[in-house]
């Protein structure tokens, strides 16, 4: 009986004070839900008297480098993928005296093909793309699609016609950024339509650009337009010419062209920054009819102030559908409208549920 009681008391004591007697340990676990896959969760089992922990990680060369000095027992850090890494913890007491040292097991991380945290984005992408593709296929089957009139787009032909009548040139600036910007690509598509008009009316076209790649693709675009209008003889590579990559030097050069050549129509279509007002004001001062278009919200006010017509945001991206008669583009506009309607509906539902303190719906739209 006494032996049993003694054994029970001993087990109880070991259970109660086991924590204090346990050695220092560090555990590294890979966070599997991460897309980059290189996140590791660190858990430190403390040793008695320790309060500060210096955590280090191993390099391929065998050296140890510092990760963090902390008082926390759990935290996360990133390591290089596909490289076996170990973590070491050095425990210090409040006087910064080393009271223990431990090394974790080897961990290896690898990049993931699918990030579960971004599933909502994936679903949205499929839904949006699917809707747009469906309406493109409908448009191809000769289903008529109505597009409301946009004043700026109707003025394109009028502006080129005016330049032809006055015997002056048409100036087209496709923004100041490179081809990795969607606005630049959209600007070049619009350039194609404007070049068709200048080819038809035999008006002079001048396209200054600030990026070499834009110059090349601009030349291709203009040449294709002149060919499609049956006027390759009017095309010249010098129509699209490069000045400089520098933002304000380019603005100074375009202003110089405006003042000297006095174009009758100025198209500012693309990605613009602070130079937008400088160009638009100069165009205004020479009395040119100006049609601007950009997706940059901060530059639209300047164009609205100084230009005759401005394509605001999405109007600018929809311009190519308006100017051409391609069912693919018309269908995509309709598809995007349907997507917008779905998003407005989601927004309405979300607002109502939030008002009644129900948050699950809003949480569906959270993402990392």
């Amino acid at each position, binding site marked *: 009986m006494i032996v049993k009681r003694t054994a029970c008391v001993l087990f109880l004591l070991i259970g109660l004070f086991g924590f204090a007697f346990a050695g220092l340990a560090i555990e590294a676990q890979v966070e599997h839900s991460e897309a980059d896959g290189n996140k590791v969760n660190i858990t430190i089992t403390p040793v008695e008297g320790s309060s500060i922990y210096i955590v280090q990680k191993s390099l391929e060369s065998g050296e140890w480098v510092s990760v963090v000095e902390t008082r926390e027992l759990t935290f996360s850090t990133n390591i290089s993928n596909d490289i076996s890494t170990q973590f070491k913890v050095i425990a210090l007491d409040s006087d910064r005296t080393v009271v223990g040292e431990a090394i974790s097991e080897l961990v290896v991380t690898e990049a993931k093909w699918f990030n579960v945290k971004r599933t909502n984005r994936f679903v949205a992408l499929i839904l949006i793309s699917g809707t747009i593709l469906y309406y493109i296929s409908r448009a191809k089957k000769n289903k008529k699609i109505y597009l*409301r009139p946009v004043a700026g787009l109707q003025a394109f032909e009028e502006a080129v016609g005016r330049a032809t009548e006055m015997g002056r040139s048409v100036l087209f600036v496709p923004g100041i950024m490179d081809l990795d*910007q969607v606005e630049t690509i959209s600007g070049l598509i619009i350039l194609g339509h404007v070049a068709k008009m200048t080819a038809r009316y035999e008006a002079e076209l001048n396209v200054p650009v600030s990026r070499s790649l834009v110059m090349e693709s601009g030349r291709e675009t203009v040449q294709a337009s002149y060919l499609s209008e049956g006027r390759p003889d009017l095309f010249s590579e010098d129509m699209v010419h490069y000045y400089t990559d520098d933002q304000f*030097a380019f603005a100074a050069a375009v202003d110089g062209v405006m003042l000297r050549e006095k174009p009758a129509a100025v198209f500012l279509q693309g990605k613009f920054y602070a130079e937008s007002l400088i160009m638009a004001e100069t165009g205004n001062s020479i009395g040119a009819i100006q049609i601007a278009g950009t997706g940059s919200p901060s530059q639209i006010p300047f164009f609205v*102030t100084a230009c005759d017509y401005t394509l605001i945001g999405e109007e600018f991206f929809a311009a190519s559908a308006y100017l051409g008669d391609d069912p693919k583009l018309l269908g995509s506009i309709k598809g995007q409208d349907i997507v917008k309607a779905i998003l407005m509906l989601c927004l309405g539902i979300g607002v*109502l549920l939030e008002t009644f*303190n129900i948050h699950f719906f809003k949480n569906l*739209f959270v993402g990392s």
Partner: protein
Amino acid sequence: MYTGILGAWVAVFLTLSILSYLYKDNVFYKLAEHIFVGVSAAHWATIAFWNQVQPNLFGRLWPQTDVASLSGFDKFWYGIYHGLHVLFGKVFPEETLNGVLYRGIGDQPQNLTYLFAFILGVFMLFRLIPKIGWLSRWSLAYVIGMAAGLRLYGYMSSDVIGQIHATMLPLWTGHLGSSINNIILIVGVLTGLFYFFFSVEHKGALKVVSRIGIYYLMIYFGASFGFAVMGRISLLIGRFNDLIEYSGKQYWFATPILLIVMVVVLVLTTRKEKEEA
């Protein structure tokens, strides 16, 4: 001392030349414009080559290595580098340190996938040879396709999903002020979105909704315009401060002297132009 004075005179001359554009297009503006364009074009080309192409492309294809340690394919690969070194020594340097010959650029890890980028870059240069100029379209197609694909996710994530999430706000928060703020925001987003409906005719009640949307946009544009103008005025004040500083004795009265000279030249040229007309 003299370089500082010379710098001040150049700065004043170029500033006044650019500002002279407010009067009309003139010889000073043309000169400043051409200097600006020429210098910046050359500067950008140089920066792009030495900061991007040389270290990030050639440096990844041929990172610096000890020639004696090369064998097999690496020996052949660095043999090509040596050939390039003979042709373009500054771009593809070789150096001897403590009697050891090193070949290559920088210390980035070798990545031969950059050969793909290198080939696409070379294709762009084929524009200079009309017969094979069409190959440059492959490079352009890659850049455009890559940009469109890469941006698709970013825009959808931040401009669509993120915005919708941020706008899902309660109509009543328990406080009048924040509730009104939320309602203004939600109405603005919904009506603003509706303004960009292209396949629906905006008439009747829909026209009212669309109008409210455009009013919201115009209020934003007005505020943004005012904010930017304030920023521009502070830039102008900065330039004027420099002009005032450079008008002192220590800069040999750069601002007043150049201003008088330019005004005289402009008056004389304008008079001459009128006489000729």
